[in-house]
């Protein structure tokens, strides 16, 4: 049963690695930014992400070839304009991003191990990391948290193999 | 304005030390600080030898002789060294850590505080003055503006001394970096730091002179030089300028500052060095490149 699940995960992962980099833009970008705006509305109201005003943060998921370019205007996160170089970049593979998101791994640890890379203005990347660390996880529904943990654990083994 | 020779940072042979201070007697310096600042293992001159040298100098000269204590105390031997200096019974002591402050305050003696004692504001200054501190050498990273703010906020001012020329002491560690460089244990260091009378330069991989290694101490790669700021130093009411001992060109350095106080300031007499800290900038920057009386 475990072997079947793992091979399905592996096939899915390889398919993603092949297909996603071929797309001109990750179709999930708009939806993801919408999700950020909804989930982080309190923090946005409190001005906790003002440091991103008119700044471009580029997040690259290296194995899947996905790029997410975010900026902030007014009280909202927005998609950053194409063709403008990013002020700050963060990159890692999908398993490591999920490990951070699910609270399995510490970003500094991954950074020391060269699995998480920062570029451009370090302060933006560092502040984003700290703000995300400070988010109240209890606001994420239990099922979603558990889902994240399961996928993170799964992907950790798949990518490692 | 008085000129002071700070305590020696490097480890020099005994004969050289004696000769160096002999030479200093014939300079226009007003104050000499003597004593081991960096490492309690250095034994060319032990505490008793420094006391003896200091007393000899005090007898033959009308310069003020001040005894400096170790900066970073680790062992009981270090502490006993500091106790001997504090108990000297005659000369003023510069405390370079709170152990010395405690001993001197308990004994009811006046004392001065060196730049490694963290006095960053008027309230700390007042606390220590209430315990007997009469002179303050500001931390090397403080700017002219901050110094002015402290002094403006003081009811009662101590004598104020500024580190005006020389490689600045930036850090102290448990580890001896000279021994590390030579592949030796600190406990078996063979006192090899004596081979580096100017310390051991540390450069970036691109050849930028960053620091100077001196046993457990790390100094700035460039000397600070506040000669160009002489006028501002006077205006701020600074009483004493500290010139840090170096093996070569000490007389020229003293002469350049002495000329400044005789209205004959010539900044070109000395290498430019750095003045970033004084100007509220990173310490390694040089802000006032030419002219005199530059403002921060």
């Amino acid at each position: 049963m475990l072997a079947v699940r793992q091979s399905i995960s592996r096939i899915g992962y390889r398919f993603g690695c092949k297909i996603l980099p071929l797309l001109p833009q990750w179709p999930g970008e708009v939806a993801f930014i919408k999700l950020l705006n909804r989930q982080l509305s309190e923090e946005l109201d409190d001005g906790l992400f003002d440091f991103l005003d008119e700044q471009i943060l580029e997040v690259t998921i290296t194995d899947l070839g996905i790029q997410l370019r975010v900026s902030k205007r007014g009280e909202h996160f927005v998609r950053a304009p194409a063709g403008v170089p990013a002020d700050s970049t963060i990159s890692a593979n999908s398993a490591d991003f999920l490990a951070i998101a699910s609270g399995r791994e510490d970003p500094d640890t991954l950074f020391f191990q060269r699995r998480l890379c920062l570029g451009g203005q370090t302060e933006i990347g560092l502040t984003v990391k700290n703000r995300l660390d400070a988010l109240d996880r209890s606001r994420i529904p239990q099922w979603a948290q558990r889902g994240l943990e399961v996928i993170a654990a799964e992907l950790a083994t798949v990518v490692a193999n | 304005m008085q000129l002071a020779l700070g305590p020696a940072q490097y480890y020099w042979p005994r004969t050289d030390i004696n000769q160096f201070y002999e030479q200093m007697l014939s300079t226009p310096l007003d104050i000499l600080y003597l004593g081991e600042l960096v490492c309690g293992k250095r034994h060319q001159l032990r505490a008793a030898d420094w006391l003896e040298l200091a007393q000899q100098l005090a007898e033959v000269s009308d310069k003020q002789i001040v005894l400096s204590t170790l900066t970073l105390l680790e062992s009981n031997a270090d502490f006993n060294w500091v106790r001997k200096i504090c108990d000297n019974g005659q000369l003023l002591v510069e405390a370079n850590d709170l152990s010395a402050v405690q001993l001197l305050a308990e004994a009811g003696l006046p004392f001065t505080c060196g730049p490694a004692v963290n006095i960053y504001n008027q309230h700390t200054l007042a606390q220590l003055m209430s315990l007997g501190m009469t002179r303050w050498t500001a931390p090397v990273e403080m700017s002219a503006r901050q110094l002015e703010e402290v002094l403006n906020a003081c009811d009662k001012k101590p004598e104020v001394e500024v580190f005006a020329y020389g490689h600045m002491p930036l850090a102290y560690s448990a580890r001896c970096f000279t021994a590390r460089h030579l592949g030796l244990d600190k406990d078996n260091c063979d006192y090899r730091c004596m081979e580096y009378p100017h310390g051991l330069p540390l450069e970036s991989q691109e050849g930028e002179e960053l620091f100077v290694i001196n046993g457990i101490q790390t100094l700035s790669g460039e000397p600070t030089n506040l000669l160009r700021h002489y006028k501002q130093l006077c205006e701020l009411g600074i009483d004493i300028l500290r010139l840090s001992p170096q093996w070569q060109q000490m007389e020229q350095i003293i002469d350049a500052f002495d000329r400044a106080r005789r209205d004959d300031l010539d900044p070109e007499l000395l290498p430019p060095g750095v003045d970033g800290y004084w100007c509220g900038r990173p310490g390694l920057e040089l802000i006032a490149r030419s002219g005199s009386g530059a403002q921060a």
Partner: protein
Amino acid sequence: MELVCPAGSLPALEAAVDNGADAVYIGFNDETNARNFGGLNFNDKNALRALERIRNRGRKLFVAINTYAKPDSFSRWQAAVDRAAGLNADAVILADIGLMGYARDKHPDLSLHLSVQASATSAPALEFYRQQFGIRRAVLPRVLSLKQVQQLAAASKVELEVFGFGSLCIMAEGRCHLSSYVTGESPNQNGVCSPAKAVEWRNAASGLETRLNGVLIDRFAEDENAGYPTLCKGRFMVDGKRQHALEEPTSLNSMALLPELKAAGIQAIKLEGRQRSPAYVAQIVRTWREAIDEVLRRGADFAVKESWRETLSKNSEGKQTTLGAYDRPWQ
């Protein structure tokens, strides 16, 4: 032995409490604390929430106000002490003598701990702070050998706290100006070593370069582990040799010394890392909780478990740990 744990955010504080912290130390989100990084630390709202969670679980809250107050804004540091007193924090961790005088006069019931930033390394130095300000506890600098810690513990009239684990400062704390020499900002006055705005990471042909205000600190080859971009852990040229002239990227780990530290009468073990994530806090606090419980049970028979060692190494700078100054040969 009290386990004192770091928290730079509420989730980190919860992770510390959930995993067995006896006390958690936090800072306010400004330059009054020595981990003054963007997005980190507690505003008033979160400090209150932190206190509530600490009280619900019967633990202690310490507030670190451990930088040196600037002459033009001393009131900000005073306000931080007032805020900590208003929270009814179990202690404030201070380094500035002027500020300690203020705390003593204004809040006589507030318990004072001497910060590691005050660099008190001898019995008379500790006595100075006890007599003048009534400090209850002092955190010892990471410059003393085990023998020196034992001697100090025997002579001290205040409780002593020592570092157990975390990023290693190799310089005497509060007496290092390397960061301000290159960037203009220092741990003492700005609460930050190598401020992020001065740090640059760049992939170059020769490897990953890290620069601080333009100064090259190191170049890492493909397979090398990295560390924090601090000057003391860079690679430099000395006498024509390229070397980690001061220290390699590494973290302090004194777990193996727990029986000796306990026997010496050390009252608390401090874990470093307010800048790290809740994931780090959870892992290292759980590990140290188990180790301290084991030392209480087994005394001198205590041995460091392999799994503990792995967890701590994994979370270390450069993926390696050292006994640091506790171990004389390191010095």
